[in-house]
């Protein structure tokens, strides 16, 4: 495929290099016609003559032998998003009969080594670990609940005393908890919040019309996203 794509470009370059000394004619400034990629039409036809998808071929061998066209339903749906009405097995309650019906499949999927070597479709599926994670870090571990009430009081006192030094990040590092937990526990004094807000407004005032429009559109898109409209 690579050579197919590269060939017209290379020929084009060669022609341009040879014509560099001459003055360009109007015909050369026109966009190039899409190249066929094959030297002859017969070769191009042969290259494009790909076999149909296996589901479109008649699977009935006996019908082929007798050369009789048989009627059958071809089920080959296009790839589409899964319906939310199909509950994942993990979400089924223990009492649901579908759990028992799917038990063999789940066991086969969980340990592919024990299942048959090549014919099973579960072995051809890529494993979950082969898909890259979106977040760089591993998921947050279970909450340890290691902070006492006194610790939280201390955290609040520090945040109220000097919100600039005792920022959310530094408090999280100091008390060995997540930043979300610090945000849940304490709130900066009102003056500090207003100051930070003023700084933010100062930055926003420097935005040009394009950046502002882009931000507004993004906010509107987010509303649509959370309402499930896009």
């Amino acid at each position, binding site marked *: 495929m690579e050579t197919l794509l590269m060939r017209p470009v290379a020929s084009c370059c060669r022609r341009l290099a040879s014509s560099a000394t001459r003055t360009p004619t109007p015909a050369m400034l026109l966009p190039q016609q899409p190249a066929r990629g094959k030297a002859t039409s017969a070769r191009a036809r042969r290259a494009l003559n790909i076999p149909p998808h296996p589901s479109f071929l008649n699977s009935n061998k006996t019908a082929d032998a007798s050369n009789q066209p048989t009627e059958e339903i071809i089920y080959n749906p296009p790839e589409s998003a899964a319906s939310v009405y199909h*509950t994942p097995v993990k979400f089924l309650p223990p009492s649901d009969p579908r759990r028992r019906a799917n038990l063999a499949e789940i066991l086969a999927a969980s340990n592919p080594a024990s299942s048959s070597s090549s014919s099973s479709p579960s072995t051809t599926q890529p494993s979950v670990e082969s*898909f890259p994670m979106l977040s760089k870090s591993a998921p947050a571990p279970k909450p340890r609940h290691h902070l006492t009430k006194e610790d939280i009081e201390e955290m609040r006192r520090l945040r109220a005393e000097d919100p600039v030094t005792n920022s959310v990040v530094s408090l999280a590092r100091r008390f060995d908890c997540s930043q979300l937990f610090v945000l849940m526990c304490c709130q900066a004094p009102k003056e500090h919040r207003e100051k930070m807000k003023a700084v933010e407004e100062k930055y926003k005032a420097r935005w040009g019309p394009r950046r502002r429009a882009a931000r507004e559109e993004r906010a509107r898109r987010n509303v649509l996203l*959370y309402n499930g409209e896009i």
Partner: protein
Amino acid sequence: MPRYTTLICTAVRCQSTAASPSIPAQGTPEDDYNDGTDHTRFPPLENLPPRAASMPSPPPSRALESAKLAALHARLALPEKLPLQTLARALVDASADPNPDFNNSTLAFVGQSLIHYHVGEYLMCRYPRLPMDILYAAMKGYAGPTTLHHVARSWGIEHAAAPGGEVDPGLLQFSMHKPGDAITGFGYQRAELKYLRKYHWRHSISSRIVFDNDFGEIVDPEAERNTLRRRADTQYGDEYTRSLAERAYANCARAVVGALYTHAGRESAKAFVRAHILSRHLNLSQLFAFKKPTKELSLLCAREDFEPPIARLISETGRLSRTPVFVVGIFSGKDKLGEAAGPSLEHARVKAAMNALKSWYLYSPGEHVRVPSDMFTEGAKPWEPAYIDMGEIIGR
């Protein structure tokens, strides 16, 4: 049973034709439909009974002569037990005839209770994990006034331009000008209603389970009555009059269910509700809106002792192009909980988390799940307890 109406004190109105001979003769039995028309030149299309035109709604005896009513009865495949007179009464709104013995307000009350009961039990058994606000929205989608208005329109019911004793009983009758004393709403009125409006007090979802109406909306009869009072000075054909028509149509649909229950019993009414209301398609997955879907999903996994959810990139195309597509799946351990495609990694991740949450909330034990009212039938199999979820993940 003869009853005196509030509007016409002289006339005696009877609900059944059997009681009609007891009407005392009142002067001449001539038609009182005197609008100056020369009846010898323009003979009436049908012979109206005496005093028909002065009544607020057609007398029940005329129901047997209405072709429209018989056609409606046949079209809805209503049983023989439901007489045409009751069907005619179901078409008279309380604004047309304030007498509750002749309008459909009582039938509508029975009908709406039945409809809400059947829709509620169906949704709770079919989708046992629906959050309360989605359940309310789904209830309104199935049994709300707009839906019932469409149902009644789809039955081919037409409305009369103005109500009166001389109109065809097969037409829906409601008044654009008189508010009537219709039942304005069904539900529990809050004691602190005044402050809810004045100080914008919050009314939580859990309190709506006890108070308010079946759709979780505040019951405010005074506000309802004020909207109805605006009827007197409106022009025909604007949005407000259209809403009045919708209201009358919805009450009519409820009243038909109530009439069916009254005459043909519980099972007929249930089958009717199943056929005309629960058979409608409502895509529940479109009712959801989330604020922090990823947080909600991780809370769900922590609550159910699943491994914490991890977003993984399943496939992508055109990362450096103007229109990239990323397919992100949310995995808990080795199981995929949800998957979505989006134009950015963050977008796809949020969407995948929303899909995972939707598939949790939209769990269904099966398409033909049994409901409690199935146990009323003779020889029903023993009841197996329906699945009950432990509750919502986060408060909304």
